[in-house]
């Protein structure tokens, strides 16, 4: 805000002119820019950038049980996080999670969109059904998954259904070997998010000009796989790129379902859950937790920017 007022004060002329002339405010587009974006940017600085900076500062200090430390220890927290194994293990967990959830959600939401798009009746009904889980919270969904569907004992739905086929009870979450917990984690997120991305694909499908398909048919392309491969997929490229980016960012932020489903276990901890236990666990080691947060943030930014470069996200806007 301070910049706004000083800028305005140094140039009082246009402001005064604006009172008399009808084209008021046109001269001070800088002033107007800050008028519109100022409140948001101030909030962004206070509630996003300052905490990030605070985190970065804490990461260089011995900060156990305190957030106003005085013992500077350089990169020791970073060394600790990168060598103690738990944090690097959590990065592996994340990589596995992203490697499964991103392509599977992409494929499922695209598949659902293609199905709904081709329906002639009850299109809105089925669209609603697939979109509805977006209304649920991760807490609520985790409750259902943990206590009703994938419950380790016999009254769980999955084990009941499996028992009809003579399958023994499976401890879905309580045992990392075999890693059945991945099925629980992945399905809960799929159920919650697939409908949202389906809507994005549906919108993109509707925007494909029908002439393209007619032209392809004249050129002898067979409907079905060929049309899908050479017309639909390329036309969906921009949406796919955005969807993959959003999925990746969302996967990095995974916390709620891992925290609620695997609360007392030591396996299947993605970075955020690991950091939560480092910073708010028994040790309350804010320094090490912050170092982990910095490493994670740098990693996310690098991956996202690299992906942006490769897939051309954002290129369309600059030409506008």
């Amino acid at each position, binding site marked *: 805000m301070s910049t706004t007022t000083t800028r305005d004060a140094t140039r009082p002329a246009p402001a005064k002119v604006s009172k008399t002339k009808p084209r008021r405010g046109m001269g001070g587009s800088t002033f107007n820019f800050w008028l519109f974006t100022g409140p*948001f940017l101030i909030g962004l600085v206070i509630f996003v950038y300052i905490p990030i900076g605070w985190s970065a500062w804490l990461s260089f200090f011995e900060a156990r049980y305190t957030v106003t430390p005085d013992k500077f220890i350089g990169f020791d927290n970073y060394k600790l996080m990168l060598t103690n194994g738990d944090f690097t293990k959590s990065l592996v967990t994340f990589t596995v999670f992203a490697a499964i959830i991103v392509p599977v959600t992409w494929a499922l939401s695209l598949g659902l969109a293609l199905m709904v798009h081709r329906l002639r009746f009850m299109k809105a009904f089925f669209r609603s059904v697939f979109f509805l889980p977006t209304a649920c919270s991760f807490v609520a969904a985790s409750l259902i998954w943990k206590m009703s569907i994938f419950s380790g004992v016999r009254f769980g739905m999955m084990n009941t259904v499996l028992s009809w086929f003579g399958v023994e009870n499976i401890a879905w979450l309580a045992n990392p070997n075999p890693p059945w917990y991945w099925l629980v984690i992945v399905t809960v997120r799929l159920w919650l998010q697939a409908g949202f991305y389906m809507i994005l694909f549906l919108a993109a499908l509707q925007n494909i000009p029908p002439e393209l398909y007619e032209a392809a048919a004249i050129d002898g392309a067979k409907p079905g796989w060929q049309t899908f491969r050479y017309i639909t997929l390329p036309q969906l490229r921009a949406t796919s790129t955005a969807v993959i980016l959003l999925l990746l960012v969302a996967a*990095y932020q995974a916390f709620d379902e891992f925290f609620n489903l695997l609360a007392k276990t030591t396996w299947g901890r993605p970075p955020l859950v690991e950091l939560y236990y480092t910073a708010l666990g028994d040790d309350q080691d804010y320094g090490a937790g912050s170092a982990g947060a910095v490493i994670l943030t740098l990693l996310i930014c690098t991956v996202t920017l690299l992906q942006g470069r490769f897939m051309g996200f954002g290129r369309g806007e600059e030409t506008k």
Partner: protein
Amino acid sequence: MTTTTQVREPVEAGAARKTRDPRRKRGRSVFSSAGLYFATAVCALLFLIPFYLIVRNALSTDAEITGENWKWFPTDIQWGNVTELFDDPTVPFAQSLWNSTVVGVLHTIGTLLVCSLAGYGLARIPYKHANKIFYAVLVTLMVPAAVTFVPSFVLVSSLGWVSSMQGLIVPGLFSGFTCFLFRQYFLGFPKELEEAARVDGLGYWGAYWRIVVPNSLNFFAAIATITFISGWNAFLWPLVIGQDQEAWTVQVALSSYMTNQTVNFHLIFMATAISILPLVLVFLFLQRWLVQGVAQTGIKG
């Protein structure tokens, strides 16, 4: 498991068409059309099962939920679970519902105001550093909010906002993502309308409130709905900030059932059902706006 078959269905349905004459656009056979509907219905059923389970468990007794003979339908519907939930003194469920409502509404109004203005400024008002500022906003999309929850908590507690409504609401207003969505939307807004308004003597501010906003109500409504939903469903921040039970939101109350020593399954599921109900209703009634809003979010690459 199910996912692979779900994904393959439309392609298989398409493959069945291969043998048909490509020029007959409506030449889909009854068989493949029926196959398509069958596949869609099976997927839809899978998506609806969790909802059904919530309702089923919410209206059952504990014995029936955990019983040996698992049944699809409860034998005796327990409507009394509703009153039992609200009379339970250990978790202030009614209070948490009210908190979530207040937080959700104020969070939505505030976010719309702050983020739409910023989005418009970034999209439309020429300023030489606008691009740099836009990237500074974009960068925040990549930083997980949870990464900074410790310093955020310290910041908010130094303001004296722990367990308060402002502590729950204010820090969440500055969503880089919502700002980004508004910017993308305003980039696509027909410039001619604003130019006409400006020729008629309106400044940016006037053009924004008198021309842009009234012509964007659909988009605002859609973003409002999405924002309300994410506010209602937020978990980590309300958990950290809601130290007193009085300040719990419904999600925190819900998760407190999980950590209780005594597990009352019927209460847990009744609470879950009630916490989901308002949003499901919002979804069903505002379906069209919501879908449009998500579709229009400007994510076009």
